[in-house]
């Protein structure tokens, strides 16, 4: 066989391999979505209002401390803190960690909540940047503010963990808005099963919604195409994959935007890793790993009810930074815990969850991108007929579209948060646009993130914060 013939044969094998990969990924995603649907249908989880009121006053419900790291959050911090203090829970405290903000985040908090410099003593010694001061409120509200040197999110969370006294800690992004019963719902698995180490809730996109006094007053997809695209992504990720992974007790991510952890387990594990940008995933994988190695029964669960609304990027530049960071976080975590890969000692975690993340979340974008490049290259040099190339692209787009639509349908079948049919139709339209170009762009950014992660690049990049939309005042 000539060299050219060999190249041709390798090329065709590669093309077939990519098609097989796409088919497998489609099958797995579809399986996870279906499993997620049946799990959600078979659970009766929504407590009645009367039951929630009883739980919200019960001394049997353990105290929870909310940790909210804040970096340059002056635009939203006031509303966010008010909303978090007003959550429905019998005994919760809020610790805001000002991570060396360069805007007036700290001053706003001091003025708004009448803070005084407190002598609060630490309860742990997790590594973090030096704390400049701890403040507490003179008002009868359970608010603590830690002012520390800038060190990143994981560093801030460790600083917060060092002064927590409650047995449970909720990790919340300070630009997020929690629904009033979110804490109680997230805590329910801990009430039901003492072996639960962590629980994570659904994250929803707040862009487009109206917020008043830290509460969502109107739910809508909004007008931003990028935000709507992320609504679909969040549906797919949370209602399909996470529900299914939680079902098999191999959930690898409790979102950094909202998750509840047992404090003693986190402190014993050494707190959040300050050397990764994917500190949420890394901690969860570490908790899994330590529990497996110690032979302790444990559960890390996903709870579909607690809804945390978070801001997503509306500019391509910011979205690119975020996706790059997420991809690097996945790479860093999987590299750090590579011992788990295919290791039967870790059960489904080692045999399914870690290989799945490695094959489809870590290297998936590279394989998908290679598929596009190979097809275009083959088309250019005449090894692939145009008709086949077109069909390949249509198949790739079609399978993506099917998954996006499945995510929307799953959300509608289970949680039904968007009241207007207009929003659902808009999401259907956006899912078409997503698969006609935006997905390719995101895939490219993720490939860059993969390369950066493998090279060991550090840093968070910038994230924009906007004021929440409020309802327009009625004309006089």
């Amino acid at each position: 066989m000539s060299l050219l013939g060999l190249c041709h044969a390798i090329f065709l094998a590669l093309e077939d391999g990519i098609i097989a990969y796409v088919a497998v990924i489609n099958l797995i995603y579809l399986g996870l979505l279906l499993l997620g649907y049946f799990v959600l249908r078979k659970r009766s989880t929504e407590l009645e209002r009367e039951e929630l009121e009883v739980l919200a006053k019960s001394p049997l419900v353990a105290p929870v401390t909310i940790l909210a790291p804040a970096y340059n959050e002056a635009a939203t911090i006031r509303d966010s803190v008010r909303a978090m203090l007003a959550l429905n829970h019998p005994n919760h405290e809020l610790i805001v960690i000002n991570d060396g903000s360069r805007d007036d985040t700290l001053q706003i908090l001091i003025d708004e909540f009448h803070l005084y410099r407190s002598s609060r003593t630490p309860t742990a010694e997790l590594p973090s940047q030096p704390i400049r001061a701890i403040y507490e409120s003179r008002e009868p509200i359970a608010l603590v503010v830690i002012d520390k040197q800038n060190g990143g999110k994981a560093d801030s969370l460790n600083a917060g963990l060092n002064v927590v006294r409650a047995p449970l800690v909720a990790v919340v992004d300070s630009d997020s808005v929690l629904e009033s019963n979110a804490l109680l719902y997230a805590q329910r698995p801990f009430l039901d099963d003492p072996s639960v180490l962590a629980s994570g809730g659904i994250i929803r996109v707040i862009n487009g919604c109206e917020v008043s006094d830290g509460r969502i007053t109107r739910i809508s997809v909004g007008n931003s195409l990028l935000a709507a695209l992320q609504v679909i992504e969040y549906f797919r990720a949370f209602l399909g994959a996470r529900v299914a992974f939680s079902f098999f007790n191999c959930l690898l991510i409790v979102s950094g935007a909202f998750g509840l952890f047992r404090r003693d387990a986190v402190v014993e594990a050494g707190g959040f890793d300050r050397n990764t940008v994917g500190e949420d995933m890394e901690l969860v994988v570490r908790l899994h790993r330590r529990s497996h190695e110690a032979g302790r029964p444990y559960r890390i669960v996903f709870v579909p009810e607690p809804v945390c609304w978070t801001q997503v990027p509306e500019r391509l530049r910011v979205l690119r930074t975020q996706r790059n960071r997420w991809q690097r976080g996945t790479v860093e975590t999987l590299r750090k815990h590579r011992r788990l890969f295919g290791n039967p000692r870790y059960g489904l975690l080692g045999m399914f969850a870690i290989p799945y993340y490695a094959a489809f979340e870590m290297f998936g974008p590279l394989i998908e991108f290679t598929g596009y490049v190979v097809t275009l290259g083959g088309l250019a040099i005449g090894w692939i007929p145009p008709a086949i190339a077109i069909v390949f692209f249509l198949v790739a787009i079609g399978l993506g579209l099917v998954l996006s639509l499945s995510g929307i349908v799953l959300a509608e079948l289970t949680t039904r948060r968007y009241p207007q049919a207009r929003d659902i139709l808009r999401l259907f339209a956006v899912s078409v646009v997503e698969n006609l170009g935006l997905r390719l762009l995101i895939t490219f950014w993720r490939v860059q993130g993969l390369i950066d992660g493998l090279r060991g690049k550090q840093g968070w990049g910038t994230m924009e914060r906007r004021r929440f939309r409020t309802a327009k005042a009625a004309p006089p």
Partner: protein
Amino acid sequence: MKPRRPGNGITIVGETLACLVFLAAGTYLAYQPLAGQMKSSGLALGWAAIITQGVALFALIFGLLGDKMKQNWRRRRAERVAPMIRERAIACAMGLAPADSLLRDYRTYPLETEACLVDSLSPLSGEQRRRLAAAAEQIGLARRWRRQLGSWFPDLRRRAGTYLGLLDSPADRATFEAMLGDHDELVRIQALRALARIARGEEMFELFEFAAGESLTVQALMSNALRSAAPMLCQEALTLVAGWKDAGRIAAALDMIRGWQRSLPMPLGPLLEHPDAQVRARALALLPYAAGFEPLAETIIRGLADPDHAVRAAAAEAAVPLKITVAVPFLAAVAREDNSEIVVRAAVFALARLGAGGARVLEAQIIHGGACAPLALEALEKLRLRRGGEHWAT
């Protein structure tokens, strides 16, 4: 009682696999004609998968949109007919209209009639509630709810249990007892709540005992549901609780009693001497609610010397609401010497709240740079700011 249904896990995996097999069969059917027309079998398979999944999705989407339209139509209809039905339901409850006056409504607007009847039942009591419950029985709603208890969907079972519980019918006792074997916790909660409404005397204790073996969610909710029986349960049942073999269950029972936050006579003596530390700690936490219990100071001081740290911390915390100032020297010793951080913190915060004597001990600790000096500073600071150190003392 054993669950009536197979575990959810097996069912869920089975249903998922069935759906995947169904989709695979559809894909294979679509693949046959495509394979002949396309050069690449892989791409033909891809197309076949898209066609199959696309058809399934569009069927679902149309179904969803249809369902949304149906719901909107139902909501509009409910807005129109609900006031009329509710009026008839109230008349029925007042004895002004016969029970079967709702029968025609139920036949024409079954869901709206169900909703109105349930809404009307909730706030009623006594004879009015009994009349309306009889109407629900007569028009066939209760029969429907009993049938729904056998549904595969837990939400439906739970709703049916909730509604059936509103009828306060002792005849349904066996039904509720069977519901206690449901594998869904929220269904069991509804059964317990319904049983709590119709239970008398000893039956209350049986429910209390059952709830003590359930999760904290159930305990918290049942603690509230059994509040009316608190005096009876505290006086008579606590003696029985002390005889249980499972210490975890005793601790849960004491937690439920603490949930009432009511000052009642409680025979805590045997529980304070219990060999299990978690029981002793829970009993000490109940001490502030144990009306007329003696000797308080001696019990607290003995608790502060307990070998278990949770018991010592509970004793320190109990000293504050009971204002046991004679415990100050013992608390001071614990604050200075105890090797458990939790106990030291509890003792320091208790000292801060036990008046001038306690505050002087803490000031001395700060001046002499004692081991608990930073905690003492924090406690006194909170005291000065009238926060009382109530937040997160332990």
